């Protein structure tokens, strides 16, 4: 029989529930809210059959562009041939997790706003740009003893003593 190319082909392990996590899914997945512009990870939950994305999108991260009653529209990049297309898919909330990729950026934004507000209050100018790690500063080497190594002239008698 030839290999099939159905919608869920080759997903026997990909869509399987992990060991000892079968059955009802924890309710926090249903209680999360998503706003347009949030970043979400797509991770298929094999226990819920409706609103499953295609296996290509499993493990992708995208932005939310639409929110409906039970599902979320996610915009994911897909390479097709020689270009990358922004694909818009709809996925049920059980197959979606909030992504932490933008978390560090959001925290930094808040901190920078705070620093800028403080600097404005004090009247000084600060730069909140991140700087790359530069070369290490110079330092004096401590506690080093000098050992001079010089070559010694070849001594035939001593060297052949062992194995001749």
């Amino acid at each position, binding site marked *: 029989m030839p290999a099939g190319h159905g919608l869920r082909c080759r997903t026997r392990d990909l869509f399987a529930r992990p060991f000892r996590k079968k059955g*009802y899914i*924890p*309710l926090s997945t249903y*209680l999360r*809210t998503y706003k347009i512009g949030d970043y979400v990870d797509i991770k298929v939950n094999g226990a819920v059959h409706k609103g499953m994305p295609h296996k290509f999108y499993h493990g992708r991260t995208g932005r939310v562009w639409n*929110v409906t*009653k039970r599902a979320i529209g996610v915009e994911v990049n897909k390479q097709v041939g020689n270009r990358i297309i922004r694909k818009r898919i709809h996925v049920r909330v059980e197959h979606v997790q909030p992504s932490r990729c933008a978390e560090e950026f959001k925290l930094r934004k808040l901190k920078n706003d705070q620093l800028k507000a403080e600097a404005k209050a004090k009247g000084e100018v600060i730069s909140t740009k991140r700087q790359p790690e530069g070369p290490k500063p110079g330092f004096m080497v401590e506690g080093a003893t000098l050992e001079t190594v010089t070559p010694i002239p070849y001594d035939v008698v001593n060297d052949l003593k062992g194995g001749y």
Partner: protein
Amino acid sequence: MAFVKAQKTKAYFKRFQVPFKRRREGKTDYRARIRLINQDKNKYNTPKYRFVVRISNTDITAQIISANIAGDMVLASAYSHELPHYGLEVGLTNYAAAYCTGLLLGRRVLKMLEIDDEYQGNVEATGEDYSVEPTDTRRPFRALLDVGLIRTTTGNNVFGALKGALDAGLDIPHSDKRFAGFSKDSKQLDAEVHRKYIYGGHVAAYMRTLMEDEPEKYQAHFSEYIKRGIEPDNMEALYKKVHAAIRADPAAKKSEKEPPKQHKRFNLKKLTYEERKAKLIERLHTLNAAAGVDSEEED
């Protein structure tokens, strides 16, 4: 019996998947819970309220709860052990008491949200199916009935509480199929029978039959009623008074509780992380000092 083959091997336990904690305790039906809690995503953070009724052997609990990831939040609650404040002291788990508890919770919530003047609900309990009409200014308070794990048979006391909340003015989607007095044959709710149950008519009828046939059993079974002078004829008037009292002042009353007594400790109190670290540093210091003294002695 020594040589019985072990049924539950180590391999069995290694592969065993434990159900959710509340399922193990037999307290939550997750299939129903998922369907009750699921809010439309395009309603974002709008809470979805459940009207939770749970009946124990001696008490009825009615609560309005909204779900959160951190834990469910209770908006308001009413217990049938509060009914003595309103004049009802016996029969706290029957259909009539459930109606009073549902009524109390409904009026309490409406008062908390300050729409109790707009939505009076059904002031005179007739037993007919009553649904709240929305007024022009504000929409009625909507909740979904959560019965828990009980078997939903016709005439269950949980539906008494539901009727109480409906008559209070809450908007709870329902059908009259499970109210006491619904007959399966005619597929209609007999409002007269339902009204009888709301005012304890079924209890009064049983009291009358016992008084005639088995007076000793009547004395034993309804001793608390007799002590308070509650006769089968004045049950309806009693419940009418309780309903009026509830509508007059549904606010929760805080009870004064003395601070709990300090008991003598028989075991050592557990140290905190900081205390344990401090103790370790002290011990190391003394060790070092002792070792220092020893090495000095050796030298």
